[in-house]
């Protein structure tokens, strides 16, 4: 007998559709199907049980990512002792059941059903885009359909018009069989409920929104409907254009920190489509509009295809060989060090590149530059997470898997907007909310999770920007003073003296919700309700984003969150935990890989002589014992004239960092700026050396997502300029006189494993075997650690931290009476370098300033008006969007377009512990204007000049010298 415990992954083939979702039950049931015995978990459908046995029952409306629906009736079976022909998708297995899946009666029944379907279906199979990948065609074949007795002349849907409004897929209702898979995918998988079946009986048809074109409906273009469509009704336009792909490679998305697995479906070296991979443990076959569709940037005409150099930034670029570019960069960097000292140069690692590439860049800086002047974009996003979680829990990472949210009873989301910034996880949260979990949102904005269709109870604490710590203290005050603590957990797991100090501090009256109401602006009663829900309503899980970290007390807030989790025992098991939602695809990895100036890979401090000795031995150099400069310190030193050279890999500091004019002044002061990127980004306009970067499609490596999951990135096409980013860094290191000779990224990972205690057990072989690994992965946890801190903390006992609220210096005044806060939207990603070069631009062509109706009315502002936004450091102009989502007194914008200059206004105010910029609080004034700001005019001029210098680049004789660096 085949005994099958369903959730056991290895036996399942992610490329097969088992018809209905797995049943999660420990009890099993035995039955026989077509004479074969099988034992499966209770609750499994007959269809799935048959599928596991390798018996494919014909089906059309069933899919294993959707609940059984039972509408097509094609999966009918005969069950001994039961009447009729039940649908096997909606029939659960029963003990002793005997099922027949094929006999004459069933064959006739299925043929009749198919005959009806086909009588209202265009028979253009040979020219249909789904040819070769059509379930309807397959089923017609499987049931042996040979004739359609009804003819094709009757009333039909063949003339229905195609909706081409979405840039990525078309909707051709003439081919629709009304199986409802798209509607159910939109509801069950994505949670948007944009699709519905309109009309009844023969008039039933799929409709987006209220019979609108897809683009005008609530559709978020996640692609779940397209993926589930069994015909070519919903079809990728790229497949319509190119035809069916012929091979595919599983890889990891390079957009947000969710780290979805995709099958890159290829024709030769042409990427036809990205299909979310069911075997991916972060996304289980779901995707968002960015990862699924926005990959066109990889082959965009703006890609930098040749290495280029120039003497100064006013000169045109000169296209040169790799050899010349690398030698030029190396000699300039060496000359700079000779003149200004060892510490006068540094580098920035990329949170978009792979772990292996990031590791190499920081190694190059520490070993070849001989200093610790390395930093990464996490400086401006999650550096407070590193500091705060390491101080309290002992490890700089989130504690859970994404799936853990399915066990959470109370979900607290602080300063994050998952449905926009981490859409696939956002969909998972919505699934749990539909199952009845409580939601607590702490955010100045009314985020979309609060509007989850069919969601449960939700509490929104709309606090004033900059008052997070006051809020978290008030929540903790309620938990302590109302006796809601988990004393057993605290006694068993936490340091008692620090706990006592914290407890004494937190229960002071000044931390009460009533006392803090004046600070946060949130009614005390609402805060008390939220605290009680988190502490007492089952498993409490906290998810947070940049609304927590990007504040002057970002690190304090992270510690406050850890305090809450420790005080309520919400750590160390499924369904609970403290979870930073990471921004970029590999920001967790870039932090893990030693990108910070004070830490070697694995968060090992450079001041520790034992650590330095271990690295020194393998690297063959002495490592500086003092931390290096952080990005903002580098800028200050550059302006002061002591920092003169910078190597930047895949990071656009000129657009993403605060106080743009300060950054521009710093970049202009450099003698040697080496930028390695796929485009001429804003930073590259200040560069002397431009090295072509490679996209995630062009190289091998790994990314680590927000749940510490190490996922493989696999090369599907050659790098446009011949070298992958890791090869370029190697070449630069060799030219600087520090030898690096890796033949494949797997060898770099082996070195990482050798030096990083949390990566000891990681290897490409194991990744191949397991699919992905969540660190720590070592002798203690050979297959990785989905949940952290189950038994103890890496520092032994958890450490409560006293979290005094200190108001930010960035305050509103009469001159700057509003607070500006910044964020992201679904269709664009970070600085937009990738998404702006795709059709995603159609959803968000420009950054807008959202303003509350009352603030707008006071200033006579209407939708679409041009607004001048000024802060104490700068001024820019954006168009207005009047929005109820905002609190009065708070305005909001995104920073996806460089010309918007959102960061011209943001200031150098930063987190006290890590210098993470306070992007979320800038005091501003807003007024109607008629022309762009001075900075914007300067930007346009400079941009035009730099584009020109690139277009007129002098192309010398191209020497194909790639082989030298391989």
């Amino acid at each position, binding site marked *: 007998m085949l005994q099958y415990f369903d959730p056991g992954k290895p036996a399942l083939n992610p490329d097969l559709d088992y018809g209905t979702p797995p049943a999660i039950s420990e009890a099993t049931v035995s039955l026989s199907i077509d004479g074969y015995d099988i034992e499966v978990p209770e609750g499994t459908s007959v269809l799935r049980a048959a599928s596991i046995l390798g018996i494919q029952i014909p089906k059309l409306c069933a899919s294993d990512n959707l609940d059984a629906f039972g509408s097509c009736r094609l999966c009918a079976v005969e069950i001994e002792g039961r009447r009729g022909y039940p649908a096997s998708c909606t029939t659960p297995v029963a003990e002793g059941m005997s099922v027949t899946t094929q006999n004459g009666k069933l064959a006739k029944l299925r043929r009749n059903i198919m005959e009806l379907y086909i009588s209202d279906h265009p028979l253009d199979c040979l020219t249909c885009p789904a040819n070769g990948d059509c379930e309807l065609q397959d089923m017609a074949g499987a049931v042996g359909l040979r004739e359609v007795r009804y003819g094709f002349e009757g009333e039909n849907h063949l003339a229905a018009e195609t909706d081409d409004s979405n840039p990525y897929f078309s909707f051709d209702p003439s081919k629709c069989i009304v199986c409802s898979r798209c509607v159910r995918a939109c509801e069950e998988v994505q949670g948007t409920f944009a699709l519905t079946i309109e009309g009844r009986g023969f008039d039933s048809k799929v409709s987006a929104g209220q019979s609108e074109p897809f683009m005008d409906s609530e559709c978020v273009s996640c692609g779940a409907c397209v993926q589930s469509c069994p015909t070519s009704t919903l079809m990728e336009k790229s497949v319509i254009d190119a035809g069916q792909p012929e091979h595919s490679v599983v890889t990891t998305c390079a957009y947000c920190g969710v780290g979805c697995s995709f099958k890159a479906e290829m024709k030769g070296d042409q990427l036809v489509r990205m299909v979310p991979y069911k075997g991916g443990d972060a996304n289980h076959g779901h995707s968002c509009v960015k990862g699924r569709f926005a990959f066109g940037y990889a082959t965009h005409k703006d890609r930098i295809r040749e290495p280029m150099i120039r003497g100064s930034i006013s000169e045109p670029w000169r296209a040169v060989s790799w050899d010349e570019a690398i030698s030029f960069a190396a000699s300039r960097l060496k000359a700079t060090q000779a003149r200004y000292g*060892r*510490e006068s140069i540094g580098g920035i690692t990329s949170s978009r590149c792979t772990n292996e590439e990031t590791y190499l860049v920081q190694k190059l800086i520490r070993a070849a530059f*001989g*200093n*610790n*002047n390395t930093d990464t974009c996490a400086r401006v996003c999650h550096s407070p997470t590193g500091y705060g979680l390491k101080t309290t829990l002992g490890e700089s990472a989130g504690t859970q898997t994404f799936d853990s949210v399915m066990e959470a009873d109370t979900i607290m989301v602080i300063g994050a907007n998952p449905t926009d910034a981490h859409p696939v996880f956002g969909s998972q949260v919505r699934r749990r909310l539909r199952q009845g979990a409580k939601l607590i949102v702490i955010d100045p904005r009314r985020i979309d999770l609060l509007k989850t269709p069919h969601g449960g109870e939700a509490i929104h604490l709309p606090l004033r920007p900059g008052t997070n710590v006051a809020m978290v203290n008030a929540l903790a005050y309620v938990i302590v003073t109302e006796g809601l603590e988990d004393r057993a957990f605290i006694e068993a797991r936490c340091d008692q003296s620090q706990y006592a*100090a914290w407890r004494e*501090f937190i229960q002071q009256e000044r931390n009460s919700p009533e006392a803090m109401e004046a600070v946060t602006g949130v009614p005390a009663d609402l805060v008390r309700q939220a605290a009680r829900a988190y502490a007492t309503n089952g498993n409490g899980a906290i998810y947070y984003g940049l609304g927590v970290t990007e504040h*002057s*007390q970002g690190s*304090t807030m992270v510690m406050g969150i850890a305090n809450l989790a420790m005080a309520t025992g919400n750590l160390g098991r499924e369904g609970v935990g403290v979870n930073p939602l990471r921004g970029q695809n590999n920001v967790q990895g870039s932090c893990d890989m030693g990108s910070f*100036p*004070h830490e070697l890979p694995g968060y090992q*401090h450079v*001041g520790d002589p034992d650590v330095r000795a271990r690295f020194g031995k393998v690297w063959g150099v*002495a*490592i*500086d*014992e*003092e*931390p*290096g*400069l*952080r990005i*903002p*310190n580098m800028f*200050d*030193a550059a*302006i*002061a*004239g*002591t920092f003169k050279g910078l190597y930047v890999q895949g990071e656009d500091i000129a657009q993403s960092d605060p106080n743009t004019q300060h950054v521009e002044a710093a970049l202009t002061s450099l003698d040697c700026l080496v930028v390695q990127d796929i485009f001429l980004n804003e930073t590259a306009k200040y560069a002397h050396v431009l090295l072509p970067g490679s996209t995630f499609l062009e190289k091998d490596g790994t990314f680590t997502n927000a749940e510490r999951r190490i996922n493989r990135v696999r090369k599907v096409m050659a790098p446009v300029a011949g070298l992958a980013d890791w090869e370029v860094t190697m070449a630069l290191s060799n030219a600087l006189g520090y030898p690096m000779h890796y033949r494949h990224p797997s060898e770099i990972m082996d070195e990482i494993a050798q030096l990083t205690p949390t990566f000891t057990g990681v290897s490409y072989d194991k990744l191949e075997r397991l699919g992905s690994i969540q660190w720590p992965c070592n002798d203690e946890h050979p297959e990785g650690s989905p949940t952290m801190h189950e038994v103890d903390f890496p520092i032994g006992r958890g450490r409560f931290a*006293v979290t*005094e609220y*200190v108001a930010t210096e960035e305050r509103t005044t009469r001159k700057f009476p509003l607070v500006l806060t910044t964020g992201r939207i679904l269709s664009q990603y970070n600085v937009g370098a990738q998404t702006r070069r795709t059709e995603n631009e159609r959803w968000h062509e420009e950054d807008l300033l959202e303003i509350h109706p009352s603030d707008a009315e006071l200033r006579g502002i209407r939708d679409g008006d041009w607004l001048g936004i000024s802060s104490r450091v700068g001024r820019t102009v954006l168009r207005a969007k009047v929005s109820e989502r905002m609190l009065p007194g708070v305005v909001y914008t995104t920073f996806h377009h460089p010309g918007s200059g959102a960061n011209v206004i943001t200031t*150098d105010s930063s987190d*006290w*512990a*890590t*210098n993470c910029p306070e992007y979320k609080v800038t005091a501003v004034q807003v007024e109607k204007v008629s022309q762009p700001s001075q900075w914007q005019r300067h930007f346009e001029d400079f941009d035009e000049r730099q584009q020109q210098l690139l277009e007129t680049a002098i192309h010398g004789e191209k020497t194909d010298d790639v082989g030298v660096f391989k």
Partner: protein
Amino acid sequence: MSNDQLHHLIVMVNQISSNLHHTGTDDEAAEAVAGHLKKFWARSMKQMIIEYADQDGSELSPLSREAVAKLQKPVETV
């Protein structure tokens, strides 16, 4: 050294002090601030703030001044 650069360092150390001032006794708080600087500040930044404290120090908060006094001037190595 530029004034801007020094000004930023003074703001930074004072900000660290106001966030750590409640750490135990005054001396423990100064140790905490000094420990933070030791762990996270680059050599050149430490040198600058120590020099400033020696020569002027007027813009440092009392706790910052005590903390910087506890900080050892980093030596040139490597």
